[in-house]
């Protein structure tokens, strides 16, 4: 699966800001998710200068107080950790008083491997914007999340091909009293991932996130183990939707789910991108759909057995790795 530039974020269409656009032609500040991307040119003497100029132009032409959502691509985020010498957001937090949502790392595969997009420590950003409601991150390299948490964050999403286990533990343990939706793409240990069920225990126990209603633990080679853990996890009864998509879920994991605690209180169960048999797909659907659970079983993948010459024991794969 390929990740793409966002077309929508925080319920708003994205709009890529150009410093050359006549200000009179810019959209209403609160009607779009403002997107920033400056494509590097060959032989350009100072590409970061152009990015700085773009941001400065935005700050002087748009009513920042009305801006609700921001999306940052390259060169602010990339795989070489270059970034800009100054944090573009934090210095303007006194003017971005209406900011509700931030997406960091909106890069496509051609720009950088998902697993290599450097994110760093997001604590200063969260501290600078205490009213932030949604934070979405694409990448994983170097990610650090404050265990002290954030009082107002309602949505946290991390898209990664290899989410560092330490970051997973920090997020799992974080105090996020308003958090309603959490999605973690755990990724592959070959690309910096490797989180285990144990790393997620505080999350699965329901601690620190009393408002959680949607949980996604996704894109993982241990999807079966995660399913087995969720079959008895205290957090599940209070959820309205659950996602185990994008990973290597097999009949074993699905069987554990069906034999575990009831799931019929859920409105949605997303198992898309999976390695389930047709029989298990039909069983899941016929047991849950008539009871009101909408089950997504699209994107079935086929285990081709792998290549023994390469030491592969199976041919299963997660949706987004490299």
């Amino acid at each position, binding site marked *: 699966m390929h990740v793409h530039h966002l077309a929508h974020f925080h319920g708003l269409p994205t709009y890529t800001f150009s410093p050359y656009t006549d200000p009179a032609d810019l959209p209403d500040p609160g009607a779009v998710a403002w997107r920033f991307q400056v494509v590097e040119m060959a032989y350009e003497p100072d590409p970061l200068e152009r990015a700085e100029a773009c941001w400065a132009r935005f700050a002087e032409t748009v009513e920042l107080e009305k801006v609700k959502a921001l999306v940052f691509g390259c060169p602010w985020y990339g795989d070489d950790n270059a970034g800009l010498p100054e944090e573009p957001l934090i210095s303007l937090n006194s003017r971005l008083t209406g900011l509700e949502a931030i997406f960091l790392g909106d890069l496509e595969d051609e720009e950088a491997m998902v697993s290599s997009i450097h994110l760093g420590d997001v604590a200063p950003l969260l501290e600078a914007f205490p009213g932030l409601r949604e934070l979405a991150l694409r990448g994983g390299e170097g990610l650090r999340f404050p265990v002290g948490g954030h009082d107002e964050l309602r949505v946290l999403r991390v898209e990664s091909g290899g989410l560092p286990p330490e970051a997973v533990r920090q997020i799992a343990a974080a105090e996020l009293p308003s958090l309603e939706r959490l999605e973690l793409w755990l990724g592959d240990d070959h690309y910096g991932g490797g989180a285990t069920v144990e790393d997620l225990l505080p999350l699965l126990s329901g601690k620190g996130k009393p408002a959680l209603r949607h949980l996604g633990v996704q894109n993982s080679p241990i999807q079966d183990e995660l399913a087995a853990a969720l079959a008895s996890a205290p957090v599940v009864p209070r959820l309205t939707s659950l996602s185990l998509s994008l990973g290597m879920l097999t009949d074993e994991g699905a069987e554990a789910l069906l034999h575990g605690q009831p799931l019929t209180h859920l409105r949605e169960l997303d198992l898309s991108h999976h390695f389930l048999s047709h029989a298990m797909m*039909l069983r899941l*659907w016929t047991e849950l*759909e*008539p009871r009101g659970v*909408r089950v997504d079983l699209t994107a079935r993948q086929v285990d081709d057995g792998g290549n023994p010459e390469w030491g592969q024991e199976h041919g299963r794969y997660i949706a987004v790795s490299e």
Partner: protein
Amino acid sequence: MSHTPESPDPDDLLLSGRDRKGELRWPDPGTQVPYGRVLHSAALLGLDPAVLVSRLEALGYADIQQAGTALPDTVRPDDAPLVRRVGVPDYGKPWLDVAEPVPLRHVLEVGCHTGRGPADVARRLTALGYRLGGDGGRPLPESSHPADVMLILEQRTNYRECRDWGDEVPAHHVHDTARDLSISPHFVATRLVALGFRLPYTPEPGDEALLTHRGSHEPGHILGLARETGRTPEDIVGRLTELGCGRPEVPAPPQPDDLVLLSANVDGRAPWLLRYTAAGLLVRHILRAALATGRSPAEVAARLAELGYRLHEDANLPAVADEADIRLLETIDRSYQDDVHLGDVLRSASLTGRSPADVAARLTALGHRLPDEVDHPEVRGLVTA
């Protein structure tokens, strides 16, 4: 002028070492001192150029590049950036060479960096002894625009290659640039003309509406413009051709419902249906258009075929458009080139409230391929859309 080691002339120290900003070391006295370096240092040191030249000669610099005209009597501090090439490092050739015509790119880069208009930069460089490229025919604009340098790049992915004074610019450069920079094509065209470039056409304000990033060739776009502007489709196609948009076809003589059929949302407005897509014409669009116009699906498909839209050969149109079929097809993101698998059938059943068996049967009747050999259940889900 001589000074003791205990009280050296400060300017001599600067001249013999680094300049006021401490960035550059003067070349050895045996090498040529570039003319631009003379003006730059004179501007920063507050010296008349002739005085600086005398100082340099006294320090042993025998070869000082000349312009071929007299040195300017004086220079100002804001002249310094004009003679320094933007972005060129110290170890390169940072000084604007007075032996060569000044490229337009330099005028625009310096203008953007200093906030001075291109005309002002050009006038001052001439006064400083430089000669400009081009034939000096059309004066440059008085004010700069932040996009000026980007406008003259041949491609937005390569900073090195750019156009120069008076070049002829191909028509596609205008809308490629407008698209890449998210600015008005009309602005790009008029700005390029103002900067002295030659376009194969004369920009008109009406061009703005004709040029969209996608859809300029589409019949809906052409017929929609004809409706808005009162121009004929032939006239619009002719202008699009002049503007470098290829050679769009003139749509078949329009019929009353054409704009509804050609609009993606069957409302007679943009966005318009695209012709050359991998999936081809979508059956759900045909059915929606049929309901909106009162025509049969077959009539809609036939008319769209006349307008250049292709329906996949496997598609099996129903005789009558049905909201249930439209709803069903909206839940399937598969074209006729793709197989519809069990997961897709189950998902559609979830979203429509129909049983998987019913969904599978109907999709098969509509021409889709369902290769999975399974017994689709008759049971329905509880949740409906």
